[in-house]
């Protein structure tokens, strides 16, 4: 490891800090330098299986037109790379021979803390309309009239026109068709996302006239699909909805289970990002959706001390792409941090970020900084663990891979990342959790 001047240290640390933002998924276009394909290290996940489900034959670059509408859940731990993977997938599929992909970022469009199916559907409509406008896709008004009519009959009769903003009214007067609908859905989505006083009223309107809305939207989607084919922009529409994995456990249940019929009344293709705990729900989820899990990067098999070289190498590559290797006092520290992350990408970046905070650009990342970072992360997890959880965590860790006791408690622990799920479906507590005194006590008793 070469010596660095104080200025160099500070510059490299600041650059690394910028690269460790984990609140934003990587864009396959602009963040190419930071991207590392981790799928080989994830085990049984492969985009190809998902593509097959979507009727895509990649070698021939063709889409099976007869493939039925797909409703796919794409789940995994928060921070394991779902959003990045979804964007990669969207880029791969968005092409004339395959899909016209509409990427809806629920975090950007809506208030994720209180999300209903109606909100998502309005946001999907909004993003679709905006994208069609941007692509200059023409639609016949005969197919958009029904949605306009739904709006005029259901929304305008119940809500004061001014309440929805003068912009909408002006727009409604001067346009019809796509510009009108784009304006309409943007206004409705904004009213919901900013938590306006009319949020609940709008939801009520959608809920109580949903079959009418769905029927009109479906007719429009069918026409749009035909126009997209003619314009050589895609064979079918695919909505990729990111951010729905942030739903709280109860809200995710309402969204993916209670209101599933409403979601499925819209006839198109969908991939919804999903929190991991919802995937452990009994058979209902798998009856209604095709389920794909994005596993953690598996750095070791359960209950073995032998770490797997390929995942370690790939995660090392990920670190090197973000943090200059000269900032590490010892290259062994990389392995230490990777092992402490349990293969959870965002936690790995968090640990690196905590290390940088320890050094403050004044020294290299050394063992003391790494230990402090690990302790810091462990203390964060400690806050979400109840005393009674430790016994269960120890029990799961000490038993073999087949021991995956699904319960309210284990679902909560999975949701909170205290318990990590690996491919081939086995669980283990997060490595930093295992460093906690309470865990040690439970393990020794």
């Amino acid at each position: 490891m070469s010596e660095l001047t104080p200025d160099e240290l500070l510059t490299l640390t600041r650059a690394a800090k910028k690269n460790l933002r984990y609140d934003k998924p990587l864009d396959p276009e602009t963040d190419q330098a930071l991207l590392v394909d981790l799928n080989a290290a994830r085990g049984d996940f492969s985009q190809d299986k998902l593509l097959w489900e979507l009727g895509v034959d990649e070698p021939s670059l063709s889409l099976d037109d007869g493939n039925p509408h797909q409703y796919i859940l794409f789940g995994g731990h928060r921070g394991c790379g779902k959003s990045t993977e979804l964007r990669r997938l969207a880029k791969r599929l968005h092409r004339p021979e395959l899909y016209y992909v509409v990427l809806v970022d629920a975090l950007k469009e809506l208030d994720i803390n209180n999300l209903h199916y109606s909100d998502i559907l309005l946001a999907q409509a909004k993003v679709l309309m905006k994208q069609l406008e941007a692509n200059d896709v023409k639609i016949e008004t005969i197919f958009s009239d029904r949605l306009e009519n739904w709006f005029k009959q259901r929304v305008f009769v119940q809500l004061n026109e001014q309440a929805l903003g003068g912009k909408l009214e002006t727009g409604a007067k001067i346009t019809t068709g796509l510009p009108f609908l784009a304006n309409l859905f943007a206004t409705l989505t904004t009213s919901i996302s900013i938590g306006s006083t009319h949020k609940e009223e709008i939801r009520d309107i959608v809920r109580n006239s949903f079959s009418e809305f769905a029927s009109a939207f479906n007719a429009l989607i069918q026409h749009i699909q035909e126009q997209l084919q003619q314009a050589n922009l895609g064979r079918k529409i695919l909505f990729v909805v990111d951010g729905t994995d942030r739903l709280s456990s109860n809200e995710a249940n309402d969204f993916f289970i209670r209101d599933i019929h409403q979601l499925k009344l819209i006839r198109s293709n969908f991939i919804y990002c999903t929190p991991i705990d919802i995937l452990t729900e009994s058979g209902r989820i798998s009856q209604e959706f095709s389920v794909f899990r994005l596993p953690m990067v598996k750095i070791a098999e359960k209950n073995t001390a032998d770490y797997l070289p390929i995942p370690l190498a790939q995660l090392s590559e990920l670190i090197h792409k973000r943090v200059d290797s000269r900032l590490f006092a010892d290259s062994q520290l990389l392995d230490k941090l990777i092992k402490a992350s349990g293969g959870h990408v965002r936690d790995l970046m968090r640990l690196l970020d905590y290390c940088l905070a320890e050094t403050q650009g004044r020294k290299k990342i050394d063992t003391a900084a790494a230990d402090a970072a690990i302790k810091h992360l462990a203390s964060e997890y400690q806050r979400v663990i109840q005393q009674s959880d430790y016994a269960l965590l120890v029990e799961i860790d000490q038993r073999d891979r087949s021991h995956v006791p699904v319960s309210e408690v284990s679902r909560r622990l999975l949701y909170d990342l205290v318990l990590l799920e690996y491919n081939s479906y086995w669980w283990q507590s997060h490595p930093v959790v295992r460093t906690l005194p309470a865990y040690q006590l439970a393990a020794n008793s």
Partner: protein
Amino acid sequence: MEWTQELDSRHSGAVLRLIDLLDDGESFCWILAEYNNQPYRDTVIAELAAEYPQQAILSATASTDLLADLPKTAQHASVIHLIDTHNWFDNQNQQSLLHRLNQRREWLAQTINRGIVVWLSETNVNNFAHDAPDLWAWRKAVVDFRNHSEDQPSHPLYSLRIDENNSDYADKQQRLIDISEYLQGKTDYSLADGGLWQEQARILASVGDYEKAIIAIKQGILISQANHDKRATAICYGDLADILHQTGDFNEALRIRREEELPVYEALGDKRSKAMTMGKIADVLYERGEWDEALSIYREEELPVYEALGDKREKAVTMGKIADVLQARGELDEALRIRREEELPVYEALGDKRSKAVTMGKIADVLQARGEGDEALRIRREEELPVYEALGDKRDLLVCQTNLALLLQTIDPERYLSESRQLLSQALLSAEQMNIPEQQVIRDILNKYNHS
């Protein structure tokens, strides 16, 4: 015979005719009695007990050997009321029983020197004529004990809604013109165009133009087939069955459900759509008075699917249909329990105000039937009407206004005459603006009140 309040005065002639035909009941005669309301049928039978204290009621469903039970019952009864005969027309075994009765009419006449009153629904009178022509030929009469629609305050305007369109007639006409202009001259129809034919059919059916609606939906079917979209084809067939159901062509509606819709959903592995189609088959059977069969489908073929899928909404909808059947059979307490405990909480939890209001309306129906008019009135005024007004749902609103007017007339015709007329006038105006088939029923009721 002493006349009681419970019998409709318009059936006085039918009762007198029946007594005249039965005479003292001591000689064989075969009379068909047509009805459409089971509690009312039971009331008529109970009233006849004053004339025939020795009369007996024999359930064709409960009897394991009807040919043996009939002569046995005849030994002590003066008149035999043969009820629950709907199974004769449902399955093969029972049909063969009707066939045997038909073949053995002479044996019947010789063995049973009693008057037999066979209670049949309207559809089954027709079926009887076809399935047992010899026995039919020996009927002494068909006596009509049907309640007419305006006499049934529970669902005077109930109709199958296949169109959610809330538009006025003028707007619907404009939409039909726009669609026709767009489709005119087109030769190569896409699936989206097929959707326009389907929309046309739904609008036409909503204004009662069934003939044109059928032509339009058949075009939709052809386009879906040409585009090899099996699901779209099945959905169009479902619409055709809905329209035929509305026109009363139950047999063809049933055939389409069973032969055109169901196999597609089975092949697609779509359990929910299959269950829904089974439910619609049961709806037809319910309309035909085949209540046991309808109940059995709701309970055994539909509910378990929704339970397995965790679909609380559809489960609640099906429970509501079960309550409809129980209500029609006079099992009001159980119907009420289902509405309150198994339907309402689900719609409340889902925030579905419209379904909640519709269910409240049905609770009001039951209360009305039990004579609890004041509570029924409160519900109609406070929990139903304002919801439809707030939702802007014109069709539900006009139905509710009509039901409210009918309820007011059962509570105090004189006191509420003016209010009832006002409600009916509002309902009629909306129905005329929408040009929906219900307008004639409302007009008839209003005319009746205007002349009272």
